[in-house]
């Protein structure tokens, strides 16, 4: 249970990291280490090179961008939970982070690492899907932006080249009279979600004017329930509307594995979507 030998690099700039990635074919990036280190320890991955990002300045931090929140990829999950700007402008993020691992893992784990590791059950990708966040990727040719919808390519495979680095995430602010709900089901607190549902609702004059629903854990990528979102707009935020959304959630195509059938995931999705929407309707607070 010890890693196989590798050559360790700790660049101090993002450019240096990109150059290292371009030079070394068999390299893995070390961010928070909470996903990579277990894989290294079990020799599940056996890279020749490990490129540690922890000494790089400038790719961590949270900045209020007015209409958006700009988050550096190396921002620790703990810092996302304790940040005032995020608490005010995207409170679903700290709410969901309570479900991410344990406080010891959140002290090291990063948002960038979670988005690049792209575990189907991970909460942060589910939230970035919810917000249609925009990711900034740096490569040898410069920077490019990736809308989150295009980010997951396949099972645990993001849309990033072998010589590229995720440097930041931009989360658009919803504003208005908006509420949020995040509900997850796992066997034990801190376990990976079997299914998670995230919802944002904006209500104006007693009617829903904007809705977003994201389901995690059901498929290899978070599922945006666009059909339900469209149906909710113009409806009153009541139990019937949420039940209808839940029925749409029940119809998603869901993964099956040794532990949980797709039918069970569909049932969970329906229940959790309903609960997330109810929660969102009950905490409309003019900020999120």
């Amino acid at each position, binding site marked *: 249970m010890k890693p196989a030998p590798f050559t360790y690099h700790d660049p101090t700039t993002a450019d240096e990291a990109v150059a290292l990635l371009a030079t070394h074919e068999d390299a893995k990036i070390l961010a928070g280490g909470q996903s990579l280190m277990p894989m290294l320890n079990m020799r599940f991955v056996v890279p020749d090179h490990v490129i540690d990002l922890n000494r790089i300045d400038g790719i961590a931090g949270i900045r209020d961008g007015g209409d958006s929140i700009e988050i550096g990829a190396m921002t620790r999950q703990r810092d996302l939970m304790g940040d005032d700007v995020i608490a005010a402008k995207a409170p679903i993020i700290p709410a969901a982070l309570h479900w991410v691992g344990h*406080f010891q893992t959140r002290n090291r784990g990063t948002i960038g690492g979670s988005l690049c590791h792209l575990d189907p059950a991970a909460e942060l990708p589910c939230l970035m899907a919810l917000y249609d966040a925009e990711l900034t990727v740096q490569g040898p040719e410069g920077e490019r932006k990736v809308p989150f919808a295009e980010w997951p390519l396949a099972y645990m495979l993001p849309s990033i080249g072998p010589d590229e680095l995720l440097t930041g995430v931009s989360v658009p602010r919803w504003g208005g009279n908006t509420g949020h709900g995040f509900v997850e089901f796992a066997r034990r607190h801190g376990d990976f979600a079997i299914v998670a549902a995230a919802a944002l609702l904006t209500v104006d004059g007693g009617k829903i004017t904007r809705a977003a629903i994201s389901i995690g854990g059901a498929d290899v990528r978070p599922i945006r329930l666009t059909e339900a979102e469209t149906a909710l707009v113009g409806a009153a935020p009541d139990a019937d509307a949420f039940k209808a959304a839940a029925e749409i959630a029940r119809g998603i195509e869901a993964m099956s594995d040794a532990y949980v059938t797709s039918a069970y995931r569909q049932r969970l999705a329906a229940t959790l979507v309903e609960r997330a929407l109810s929660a969102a309707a009950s905490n409309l607070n003019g900020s999120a």
Partner: protein
Amino acid sequence: MADTRDIELTVNGESHAANVETRTSLGDFLRHGLDLTGTHMGCEHGVCGACTVLVDGEAVRSCLMLAVQANGHDVTTVEGLAEDDGTLGALQAAFWKHHGLQCGFCTPGMLTSLTAFLRDNPDPSERDVREAISGNICRCTGYQGIVDAALDAAKTMQQGS
């Protein structure tokens, strides 16, 4: 040829310099490099919590950090929680009083995790404590003694005694 690096770090208030293989975890370095065997390696994939130490005051899994990543940082292990003269800290004394340990394997991780938690949450509810230790697995105690100890220690520390 193994890939090694020179590192310097402070552990329990003392400076140490060493040359380590880059693949060595912080936990293994503390145990084998510095003979601080209080930190225990239970699972080596971050779920059991027995390896938890404080790095710059924050509770982290020493099995999921490389020793080289601790270069220039401040580490506190269970061995660093007592007073200089060996008197048990408030949390340790409470564990003793409330039978918060039996075999002792999870205990170092419990103590370091709770040290950080109580520092940041000086007046927790029982539920808060249970959530705080949800990342530390104990096979012996059933957790009640640990929870009682944490709540008692919180009271003691609040009273400043």
